[in-house]
């Protein structure tokens, strides 16, 4: 358990956390402002990845594929909003859950029909595909640093948007009390569409950025969706700051847990059981964390309003 390994693992945790933040940000916005549980947020992440693969195959250029994928994801997201979701805002949470679960089923299977069940992949752009020497003997893939950088960048942009712009002001107000916003005479429907479209793009962006590292396959959004929910619940629903901090927290706890759980257990038990118990505990860690946070703070770390 050397210091340099700890450093690298922290970086890995950061990268995972940033990815979770990109997905959770949209989820917490949609949930916070519209009081809408969108389980289909995960398939929008998956769709981003698939679209990028498709556009890359057509154009051969990562950047162009990225832009096209985001645009296509946005169009698709708005279409979904128009056809289905906007009829669900006034419904109770359970109905939202079941309807968006139906969308997940449909899109997971649809993707399989269109692109096949086999995993696909997206290459890293040539100039960013190498590794750099972080410290003697420790190489680190440039692309992972790019993910960290772009995630932090998006976080900064979001912060500026939310704190400095009129739409951002409305979003904050909406997360605190939606009735006030509509009382201000704002076209709530348009605000919702903007927020929803934005959330969709963020999820798709996460999908595109991670596609070169992970295999692009049907159902890739399901696990991430649950983690994103863990993040926004720990952070406090509707809180962008909460989502950011919780995402990094989850990323670090999960990564560091996986790396060091066994080593730590070996201190107190023989190596063989430690090896099997360790991964189980590591998998559980984030859920334990969530349960603890909610036990002491039943509305998350940064509660936005008393729900």
């Amino acid at each position, binding site marked *: 358990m050397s210091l340099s*390994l700890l450093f*690298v693992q922290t970086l*890995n945790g950061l990268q995972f956390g940033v990815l979770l933040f990109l997905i959770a940000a949209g989820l917490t916005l949609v949930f916070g402002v519209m009081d809408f549980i969108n389980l289909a947020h995960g398939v929008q992440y998956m769709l981003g990845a698939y679209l990028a693969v498709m556009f890359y195959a057509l154009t051969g250029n990562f950047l162009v594929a990225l832009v096209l994928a985001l645009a296509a994801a946005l169009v698709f997201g708005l279409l979904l909003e128009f056809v289905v979701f906007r009829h669900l805002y006034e419904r109770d949470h359970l109905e939202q859950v079941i309807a968006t679960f139906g969308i997940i089923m449909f899109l997971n299977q649809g993707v*399989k029909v269109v692109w096949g069940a*086999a*995993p696909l992949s997206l290459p890293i752009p040539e100039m960013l595909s190498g590794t750099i020497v972080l410290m003697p003997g420790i190489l680190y893939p440039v692309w992972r640093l790019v993910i960290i950088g772009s995630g932090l960048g998006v976080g900064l942009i979001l912060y500026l948007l939310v704190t400095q712009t009129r739409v951002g002001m409305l979003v904050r107000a909406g997360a605190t009390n939606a009735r006030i916003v509509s009382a201000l005479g704002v076209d709530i429907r348009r605000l919702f569409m903007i927020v929803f479209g934005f959330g969709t793009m963020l999820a798709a962006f996460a999908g595109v950025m991670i596609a070169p*590292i*992970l295999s692009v396959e049907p159902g890739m959004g399901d696990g991430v969706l649950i983690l994103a929910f863990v993040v926004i619940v720990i952070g406090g629903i509707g809180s962008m700051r909460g989502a950011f901090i919780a995402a990094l927290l989850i990323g670090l706890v999960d990564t560091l847990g996986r790396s060091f759980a066994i080593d730590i257990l070996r201190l107190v038990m023989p190596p063989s059981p430690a*090896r099997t118990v360790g991964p189980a505990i590591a998998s559980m860690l984030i859920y334990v964390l969530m349960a603890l946070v909610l036990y002491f703070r039943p509305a998350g770390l940064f509660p936005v309003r008393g729900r």
Partner: protein
Amino acid sequence: MVKVLMTSVAAVALLIGQAQAQEKLKIGVVTTLSGPAAVLGQQLRNGLQLAIKNSDGKLGGREVQLIVEDDELKPDVAVSKAKALIDRDKVDFVVGPIFSNILVAIMKPVTDGGAILISPNAGTSNFAGKDCNANFFVTSYQNDQNHEVMGKYAQDAGMKKVFIMAPNYPAGKDSLAGFKRFFKGELADEVYVPLGQLDYSAELSKIAAASPDAVFVFLPGGMGVNFVKQFRQAGLADKVKFLSAFTVDESTLPAQKEAALGFFGGANWAPNLDNPQNKKFVADYEKEYNAVPATYAFQSYDAALLIDGALKATKGNTADKDALRAAMMKAPFTSLRGAFKFNTNHYPIQDFYQVKVAARADGKFQTEIDKKVFANYADPYAKDCPMK
């Protein structure tokens, strides 16, 4: 009068003949067609369908009706579907499944129901050993064997230090146990990751820090795709030899592509295995499904050949199970892998190879035979099997 009689006899004979010909041979398939693992399940189904198509829709002279069920990778769903095959469809054979946990779940309902279960992939150690079953045949391998191939290879190549990793589930533990059975050098570390883990950054950092001669991993499906890409991205591919089982094969290579070039696996077959029947199979499969077949497809193709050969020997009779089993035991078919026979536990005795990922002229990727590691290799569990 005589003429009339003659024609009616002929007509009756014709009718009987038709009735016999019309009674179709029903084969049930339990395979995974939902979720990411569907790619393996589809290969299984495709292999069977191809074999049946190549023999004009007939096996052992009987018209075949294939009934495909998706187990959704849920044991209780699989059991329900298996019962449906046995009871509703009255199938004579069930071919499947892909995953060991599904095999364990459907074993009892299928074999108790009187059908013969042929596994074209999963081959757990319990069914090879003390729980072996007269109505259960395996056309793949015993689960440990491909891992043992790699262990033997690492040992023979004189490797000093190997980092080994597998998912934290029974097959994962069997895998590393299989590798360690033959590799006696130092283990840099033995790591179990949660099943379905996607990001290996933590483990890759550990590998880089340990700088072993080789890694051995068992990461099937999407896990392998991710690991291989990330392994390459981390710049480890040039420094550390990549040994694996079920991690780089034709089901994952379309996504891994160049990232897997030169990586090793252990297998009982490869698409370039040099014999005429295999050449035809690979060509047919690629033509039919526009993809390179993997072991799952070839093993289920062999399962169909096994049924075909056995039924030819029993003249299409499936009612006499003893005769049918005896016929199957003789393995009366020309396997795509060449030499093949059944051990007493109904698991194969066969050759195993070290295979290597290579790019083909047409831009696709496949594994190719690098070296034969075991000849006529039988699994060690057979001695615990009461069947003789």
